[in-house]
Each structure stands twice: as C-alpha cells, then as structure tokens.
C-alpha cells in the first residue's frame, strides 16, 4: 500500500468516499447505474435539441424499465443461489 494510502488523510478520504458511496449507491449499484444511464441518455437527447413532453415521459418510463430490470436480476441471482 502507498504511503498516502496508509496516512491518516488517506484513511479519512477512503472512509469519506466509502461513506458517501454506501449512502447514495447503497447495497445495489445496479439501481444507480440504471438511473444514471437513463439520465445520461436524456442529457444527450436534450443537448441534441429534443426536449418536448414526449421525451420527458419516455425518460420516466425508461427509469421504470431500468428499475424493473434491476429487480429481475436480483431475483434471477436469488434463484441461482
């Protein structure tokens, strides 16, 4: 491990980062990854000049789809043991 990694500052920063990761992302990174991917896709659409009501509704539906996929993956893993 580097000298930085062993120092008090390094330990604090790692602990700080870990705390916020656990706090925001929690125990299922798939949820954050799914929502983040949809928002990035939305940002690209908006930057490309598409920002009407249909795009807004589409993005909400896609967030729901991402959530559903994440839950189904959980169950598939559960069934596989």
């Amino acid at each position, binding site marked *: 491990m580097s000298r930085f990694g062993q120092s008090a500052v390094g330990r604090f920063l790692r602990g700080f980062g870990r705390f916020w990761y656990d706090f925001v992302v929690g125990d299922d990174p798939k*949820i954050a990854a799914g929502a983040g991917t949809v*928002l990035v896709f939305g940002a690209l659409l*908006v930057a490309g*000049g598409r920002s009407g009501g249909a795009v807004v*509704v589409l993005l909400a539906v896609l967030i729901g789809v991402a959530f559903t996929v994440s839950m189904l993956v*959980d169950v598939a893993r*559960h069934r596989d043991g």
Partner: protein
Amino acid sequence: MSSADSALALAVFIAAVVEFVEALTIVLAIGISRGWRSTLVGVAAAVGALAVFTVIAGYSLATWLPEAALQLVVGALMLVFGLQWLRKAVLRSAGLKALHDEESEFRDTTEAARLAGTEQRLGLDWFAFVVSFKGVFLEGVEIVFIVITFGLSADNMPVAVASAVAAAFVVLAAGVAIHKPLTRVPENTLKYVVGLLLATFGTYWSIEGLGVFSDGAEPLSWPGGDFALPALVIFWLVLTRILAVGLRRRVAEPAESVPGGAR
C-alpha cells in the same frame, strides 16, 4: 399552504419519523445498558456535527448551482435514494428480505453493548459515546439529505425544516413517554411510502433538471405541469405492486440469500 407544500411537508415528516425512530432505538439501547451520560454526550456531538454538515451542504448547493443543475443533481440523488428504498420495500413485500424490526434491533444493540469492553476516553464510556454518535449521525444525515433535497427543489426550505423538527418532537415525546423502542410504528409501510415519494419527486426533478443541457439551460416542462406528480406516484405505486406480486410468485426459497441486510 398549497398542495405542493402539503406534499413536501408530508414527505419530509414521514421520512424523518422513520429515521428518528431508528436513531431512538439505538440511543435507548445504549443508554439503558451503558448509562445515559456518555450516550447523551454522543447524541449532542452528533447533533452538532449534523448542524455543521447541514449549513455547509445546504449553502454549497444553493449558492454554486444554477436552478436547472440544482434540480438535476438533487433530483438524481433523490431518485437513486428513493429507488433503493423501493427496492427494499419490494423485496420485503415479496418475502425476499426480512422485515425491519425495531424490537430485534433493540435486542441486538443491547446485547452488543453488554458484551463490549469498558474503555474510558476523555472521561466517557467510549463505546456508548461512539455508538450513539454514529447512530444519530448516520440516521441524521439521511434526514438532512431529505430536508435539503426536498427543500431546495421545492424552493421551500422552511416547510421542510419545520416538518423534520415536528417529526423529531413527536418521536422524542413518544420515546420519553414509553421509554422503549417504538415498535408500533408501521416502519416498513412508512419506508415504502417514503420510497414512493422520493422516487416520484426524484423522477420529476431530475428529468426537469436535464434542461440544463438545452440551449437556454431552462428546466424541461412536464406535460400537465405539477399534475404530473400524482401521475408519477401512481406509476411507481403500480409498478412496485406488480413487481412485488410477480417476484413473490417467481421465488420459492426464503429471504436470506438476497444481497443487502434487513435495514
């Protein structure tokens, strides 16, 4: 008070009640088994740390980010946070995850406190101080996060703060009155409701905030304006109920192997 303010107040109040109940369970378990002095010093230190955190986080977000970017950042955080709560609620409802139980939480914490050493630092029972500090700070950060994100996004911080303070008084008064964990609070249901509200407002504000990438950097508009909010509540409610029923049917095995604790 407008309907938006009422929804804001309700959302923050319910979320704060849930978190305060969890913090109260830890404080009661430590206070009863290890003594109150060090436990309450830990609580006071956590409240002080939370106050500093709140001022810094609130000021930074409100000062440095333009409106649409602020909506995007806090909306995205709220969305991810809300979806995590909904995920746990769906897994609990489907029988894939144990229900959160304040009584067993209290029992476990009390047992751990009895078995812990008696290290003294700064004249304090260090175990009691650290556990009560961590418990109150971690639950408190969640409350602060919810207050700041709801308050800034709805542009009504006083209502958000007042709701959290009201929740603190209600839980504290109940805790002092009965002097044991508040096991009758329907915590799992409340967590589901909070998840629905966080996911709803998070979806609404994060998508609105994507307008920061448009030419005028103005927030996007939802069809129907604020009426989109009840539609989003229904959307998340229906989706999570379908998932809970569907997942319950698909799984025969008990809950233990699904990742994530009982929290």
